[in-house]
């Protein structure tokens, strides 16, 4: 006997599955077939079984079950707490790009209007420049500058939300490296589950894609860090030990991601130990 979507059949016998579409979906999602002894579905068996009246009916019943199953799986996938966080991080990163692009363009435009203006030897932060442009420019340029300010405001609010959500969804990783960076790691891996399955060495260079493939292809020096460079222990470390700090941090992050995925709550004993280890590496101790 073999299990098919419509029931169990084989050796001239057949047991149709009785249950509604929902029950059928649960059944087929739980089935796993041994491929060595497998023979594909024969729709005539379903006909003999009394499951369907003809070929068209067979396909339409099968399609109904398959659509329901696919819909359920899609729903389950999006129900994970990381699904929305992933979209939030990607939106955040894209907003940063848009804000920078627009600011650069608006500054170029502003320069044309003010031939004597230069940013050299001034320490005007970008947002102050945008504010100046808004106040001093008539017409569309002033409005564009105003939009950039608006976007920057939204970006700040979004960043706070990302950070708060990351603390909730991935408490251990966030505790080690901060909510925002933790969320970026997760988004780069494609979700919490994929992140939890990455080896530490991959986490270490996550976000250093170009450098990594340049290394693999043309044997340039390997990247020491990707996104995790944003952690103060990594970018504040002296050059010679930066690689070591990144490696130790990545090792602890790999464990943290697994704790987040499988337990979903902060584990203080682990965090304390990991923090000490990372600090020690940053101070040049340990291997």
């Amino acid at each position, binding site marked *: 006997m073999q299990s098919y979507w419509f029931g169990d059949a084989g050796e001239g016998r057949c047991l149709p599955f009785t249950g509604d579409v929902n029950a059928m979906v649960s059944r*087929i999602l739980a*089935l796993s077939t041994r491929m060595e002894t497998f023979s594909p579905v*024969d729709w005539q068996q379903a006909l003999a079984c009394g499951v369907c009246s003809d070929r068209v009916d067979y396909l339409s019943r099968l*399609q109904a079950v*398959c*659509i329901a199953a696919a819909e359920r*799986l*899609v729903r389950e996938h999006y129900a994970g707490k990381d699904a929305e966080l992933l979209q939030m991080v990607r939106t955040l990163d894209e907003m940063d790009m848009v804000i920078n692009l627009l600011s650069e363009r608006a500054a170029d435009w502003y320069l044309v209007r003010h031939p004597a203006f230069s940013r050299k030897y001034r320490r005007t932060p970008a947002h102050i420049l945008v504010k100046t442009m808004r106040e001093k420019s008539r017409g569309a340029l002033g409005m564009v500058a105003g939009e950039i300010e608006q976007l920057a405001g939204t970006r700040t609010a979004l960043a706070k939300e990302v950070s708060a959500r990351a603390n909730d969804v991935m408490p251990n990783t966030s505790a080690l490296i901060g909510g925002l960076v933790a969320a970026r790691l997760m988004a780069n891996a494609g979700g919490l589950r994929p992140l939890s399955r990455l080896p530490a060495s991959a986490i270490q260079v996550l976000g250093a894609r170009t450098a990594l493939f340049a290394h693999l292809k043309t044997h340039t020096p390997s990247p020491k860090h990707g996104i995790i460079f944003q952690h103060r222990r990594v970018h504040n470390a002296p050059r010679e030990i930066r690689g070591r700090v990144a490696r130790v941090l990545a090792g602890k992050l790999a464990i943290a991601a697994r704790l987040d995925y499988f337990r979903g709550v902060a584990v203080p004993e682990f965090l304390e130990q990991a923090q000490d280890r990372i600090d020690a590496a940053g101070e040049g101790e340990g291997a």
Partner: protein
Amino acid sequence: MIWIGDVLVSRGEGGVYNERMLAGARVWDPYRSKLAALYHVGKGVELEPALRVLYLGAANGTTVSHVVDYTEVVYAVEFAPRPMQDLIEVARRRRNVIPIMADAARPEMYAPLVEAVDLVYQDVAQPDQASIAIRNGVFLKPGGHLILMLKTRSVDVRKNPEAVFDETLIALREAGFIIEESVWLAPYHQDHAAIVCRKPAKPGE
């Protein structure tokens, strides 16, 4: 295959992805679909009304919608949820598309749904494309065809596309497939090759 002049088309309900219509038929663009490109640069497999197809890596159902215009039924396997939402929509409008959300590398998870098919079409961005095709060979009727769209860049970016191509051909031959055609899809798609092979009608053919 249906050609109007040198334009490949399929006959079915239009408007799936804002495709162009020509004399009431749906234009099948070789730059968008690798299978359409295969019919332009090579011979491929003639799609017929009685054909049953297992389609691995169905994505948004764009190519699926054309294949199913020609054939009896398409079992469309796709793993990612985002394109699956589109594929479900295509299935709602076309009664012979069976959407299956599963990993093409694990046929044991969808085996209870799929019957023996005349054609396995595979277009997946995975490193082990040859072994996925071979594993799904169990669904293929003797004498049935396999079309493998080889994304050489997904197998190994470090390797030369030609080397990946040759290795795949060897793997398929060793698994008992008879290679009928193998072509690069340039100029329509870069670093993509199509391999058409047949499962022997009887063992030892």
